[in-house]
């Protein structure tokens, strides 16, 4: 059960760490590296609170071993804002009251950005389907769907200051 040396590139920063093979990605991120924005809810792959992007796709980090993520690019909720500017998905949740206690929100936003990158103009039904793997126990889904719609509309607008649409990890598509 020897430890393994791995490299994780989290929100653009390389980290080298030593983990037991059984260490879950979510624990490596939170406990070893201090990215506590990613929450742990159910621990059973059901609630989606732990969702991060791995190699550009939304995954439940409670169901990925840190060793499986060796060498991968990871984006967490902390990587959404740039400088003082919120990402449109963060603005969307703020504008539309898409959160109450906020526990599910980091995961919701990471899944939503994965969805919007693939489908920039989703219908409300497609948003609901896209967020199927994320549970919210207090806000209610109506406002969350509104928040994602709001972000989709914002992302659709040409960026006012001539900048580029920001995606976690900085890639445009």
């Amino acid at each position, binding site marked *: *059960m*020897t430890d*393994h040396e791995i490299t994780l590139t989290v929100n653009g920063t390389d980290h080298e760490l030593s983990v*037991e*093979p*059984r260490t*879950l990605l979510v*624990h490596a991120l939170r406990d070893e590296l201090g990215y506590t924005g990613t929450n742990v809810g159910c*621990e*059973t*792959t059901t609630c*989606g609170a732990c*969702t991060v992007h791995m190699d550009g*796709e*939304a*995954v*439940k980090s*409670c*169901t*990925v*071993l840190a*060793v*499986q993520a060796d060498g991968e690019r990871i984006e967490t909720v902390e990587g959404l804002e740039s400088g003082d500017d919120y990402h449109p998905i963060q603005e969307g949740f703020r504008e539309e009251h898409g959160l109450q206690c906020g526990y599910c929100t980091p995961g919701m936003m990471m*899944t939503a950005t*994965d*969805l919007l990158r693939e489908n920039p103009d989703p219908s409300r039904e497609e948003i609901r*389907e*896209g*967020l*199927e*793997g*994320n549970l919210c126990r207090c806000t209610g889904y109506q406002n969350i769907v509104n928040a994602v719609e709001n972000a989709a509309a914002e992302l659709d607008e040409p960026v006012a200051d001539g900048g580029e649409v920001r995606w976690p990890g900085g890639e445009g598509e």
Partner: protein
Amino acid sequence: MIPDGFDYHEPETTAEAIELLEEHGDAETELLAGGHSLLPAMKSGLSSPDVLIDIGGIEELTGVTADGGTLTIGAMTSYSDVLDAEAAREHAPALTAAVEQVGDRQVRNRGTVGGNVAHADPASDLPGAVLVSDATMVVQGPDGERDVPAEEFYLGMYATDIGPDELLTRVEVPSAAGAVGTYVKRASPSSGYAMVGVAALLSVEDGAAETVRVGASGVMDRGVRLEGVEDALAGGSVDEETIEAAAARAGEGLDTALMMDDLRASGEFRAQLLEVYTERALAEANADLAAPAAD
């Protein structure tokens, strides 16, 4: 919710993975694919292997290719990569329709076709669809490769023909281009797995059914072809009435007493669902034939 400790290996080739399987034959050894069945089982203590062989880094096991009338899906291809592959939609429409219904977005980003098939969970979405697609499972071990038809691959709940030092390398599907494929499922409200899921492959030539293949997951201890339904429609016209009459034969040849019977649904309820979902799968296929869906 933290798995017991284990030794972890990351082979880079299939041959290396097989060597590791042989080398650790005495220990409890598991292959790790997408981990979306295995890791939950390990976290809850249902499974505690001594050795994990992670096949996620083996490039030759990943990807979708169409060649000479055969669609090949590498065992390590994620569901989302199947859905991104135009060739999969074109040549294996029923299987692709089933893949689309697996779990949720995050599960589809990690889970793999090979892992699903190898795990042989009767409530998963692919067993019925691989039968309908006439898939061949290609299994590799120390003595080389062998082809196992889907019909012979599943041996029961969580049991397949894969030997202890073998692994599944790919799933091959003869092209069904031109036919329409559908999959409709009654998902368990809590787990999302199939209480009943029906896959159908249908094509019509000059008003008569040409290809009719129908199969189900979730009903028996493994996927099943619904031969009564297929016989009812073969060569005849396909309309609301014939579909309804065919669906009424969905349970033909299936022993109701052996149907899956658990907290989610009794065997009797599954038998009812099977008819209804068979009708829906065929009706949807027939509608798609009449007016190909925009997507």
